[in-house]
């Protein structure tokens, strides 16, 4: 087997999490690399959807950003940004949302907004972009991030994209001027749907992508969950994590080859229980690596 970096292992593992013929909403950065790799490896009909409005992209080079012109040439469709969020994401057509993160916590909450107080930030991060929207509206969410010592925290300082514990947004109930409904965060069970009209809001039970299949065994989010499904997978350069329990919290699923339990534990700032018989993440094949290197070689910037 060709020797490979942990970064490469992370990207190949992330690519493998995508099944062919799924419709995936591709975030900026590492998700962009992983999704494009998957399309060139085992998922030629993976439908790449970008918040920039590209649907069914077939880029000839690795896109340097989510708005790279190579995404447009040869795509199945280009639509406006409102349309891609309304008709695809909120319309329930996205099987997998693929996100990056600066900080992720025990319950899968993501922070890409700020380190330190919001009003006096220590480090101001870029913000949500489409991340919060994707986290709430995709059927499932996968997160990919390099596991720096700062990645995992017990509680994120700011919830950009909500995870599994569904805590109400901070400050919200006491916020200024958001109107009389401002504190009404829980879906008010309210009146049942109108029975006057057979065609009032009957959402499809599953993705309407013909013949699409989802990862067996992963929870499908239902339309009735306004907080989203929370991330199902976190893939770093050290390990693969899932989320289990109620509320679901981070668990290690497999360690990458050569990574020790201690190394992982040292990067998790709460007392996490590691299974005794943790499997080892399958490594990339020679072809995986060859394609990845070819894909990444062509681009300036981190993808």
């Amino acid at each position, binding site marked *: 087997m060709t020797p490979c970096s942990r970064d490469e292992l992370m990207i190949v593992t992330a690519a493998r999490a995508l099944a062919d013929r799924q419709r995936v909403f591709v975030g900026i950065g590492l998700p962009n690399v992983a999704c494009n790799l998957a399309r060139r490896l085992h998922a030629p009909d993976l439908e790449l959807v970008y918040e920039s409005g590209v*649907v069914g992209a077939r880029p000839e080079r690795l896109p340097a950003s989510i708005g790279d012109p190579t995404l447009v*040439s*040869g795509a*199945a469709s280009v639509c406006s940004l409102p349309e891609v969020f309304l008709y695809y994401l909120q319309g329930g*057509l996205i099987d997998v949302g693929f996100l990056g993160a600066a900080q992720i916590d025990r319950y899968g909450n993501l922070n890409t907004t700020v380190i330190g107080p919001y009003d006096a930030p220590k480090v101001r991060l870029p913000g949500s972009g489409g991340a919060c929207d994707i986290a709430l509206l995709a059927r499932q969410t996968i997160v990919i991030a390099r596991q720096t010592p700062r990645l995992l925290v017990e509680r994120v300082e700011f919830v950009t994209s909500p995870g599994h514990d569904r805590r109400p947004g901070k400050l919200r109930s006491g916020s200024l001027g958001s109107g009389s409904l401002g504190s009404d965060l829980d879906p008010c069970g309210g009146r049942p749907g109108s029975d006057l009209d*057979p*065609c*009032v*809001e009957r959402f499809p039970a599953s993705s309407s992508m013909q013949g699409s299949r989802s990862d067996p065994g992963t929870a499908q989010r239902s339309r009735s969950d306004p907080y989203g499904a929370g991330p199902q997978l976190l893939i770093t350069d050290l390990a693969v994590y899932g989320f289990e329990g109620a509320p679901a919290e981070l668990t290690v699923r497999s360690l990458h080859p050569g990574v020790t339990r201690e190394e992982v534990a040292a990067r998790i700032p709460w007392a996490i229980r590691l299974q005794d018989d943790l499997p080892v993440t399958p490594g990339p094949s020679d072809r995986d690596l060859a394609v990845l290197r070819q894909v990444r070689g062509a681009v300036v910037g981190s993808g």
Partner: protein
Amino acid sequence: MTSKLCSLTEAVATHVRDGDTVILEGFTHLIPFAAAHEIIRQGRRDLTLVRLTPDLIYDQMIAAGCCRKLVFSWAGNPGVGSLHAFRRAVEQGIPSPIVIEEYSHFALAMRLFAGASGLPFMPLRSLRGSDLPGVNPSISTVTCPFTGEALDAVPALRADVALLHVQRADTDGNAQVWGLTGAQKESAFAADRVIITAEEIVPSSVVRADPNRTLVPGSKVSAVCVARHGAHPSYAQGYYDRDAAFYDAWDEISRDHDRLRAWLDAWVHGVPDRDAYMRLLGEERVQQLAAEPAFAAPVNYGRYA
């Protein structure tokens, strides 16, 4: 990708069921008559038919007995007058009574928009002071949480299947239109299943060289079918003109239920498909409806490899 190309007969047999909520959109342009005729031929019943302008297409489907309920916003024969089969059903219950649910164009378009967008409702500034909300309990109001203003509100509309006619598509189902697009895109995304009929099937490279023209990507399409002249007597921009003489003639044909049924026997039940319909129409009419070419200036998308 697996081809989604099949005959219209097969597409309707597989994807359109008795009792379905069905949208055949196309605002004046690209009205999917070939698809409607196939639904009539296959004898579908109890359909909830949704369309802004029922036009001749639903007049024919109502007369054929396909329709249980009609959701619409303007039921006339454009430039001519009444839709007589629609009126007979509403005024006299012939061939059977139908339930109607009506809106303004804007309000019905917003129902489709909400259905496409995963929203349970859309607010709009219309209908205030009209009697329409009084006869349609699906219209309500909502208060703006910022200004306190009361707006009208309509609920999302979701359909089982949308049938849309386009100028060109590839075998993956990627479908492209130009000219009037009406509410075709909203209809496609508001439906669980989408059947595309196309004037032409073209290589994927043609579609993918101009992705801004795509109405709906193949991944949202269940079946794609060739139907040359599939919109006649409506039109396909750049392919053929609207058959205004037929819209005029329909006024006579449709005034009498038996005469209309005889027309359906000859032009719908009497032909197996659209090609046979067009042969019946005759080459001379086809020639008359042809449009003089007028091409758009080329645009360069560039290759970024």
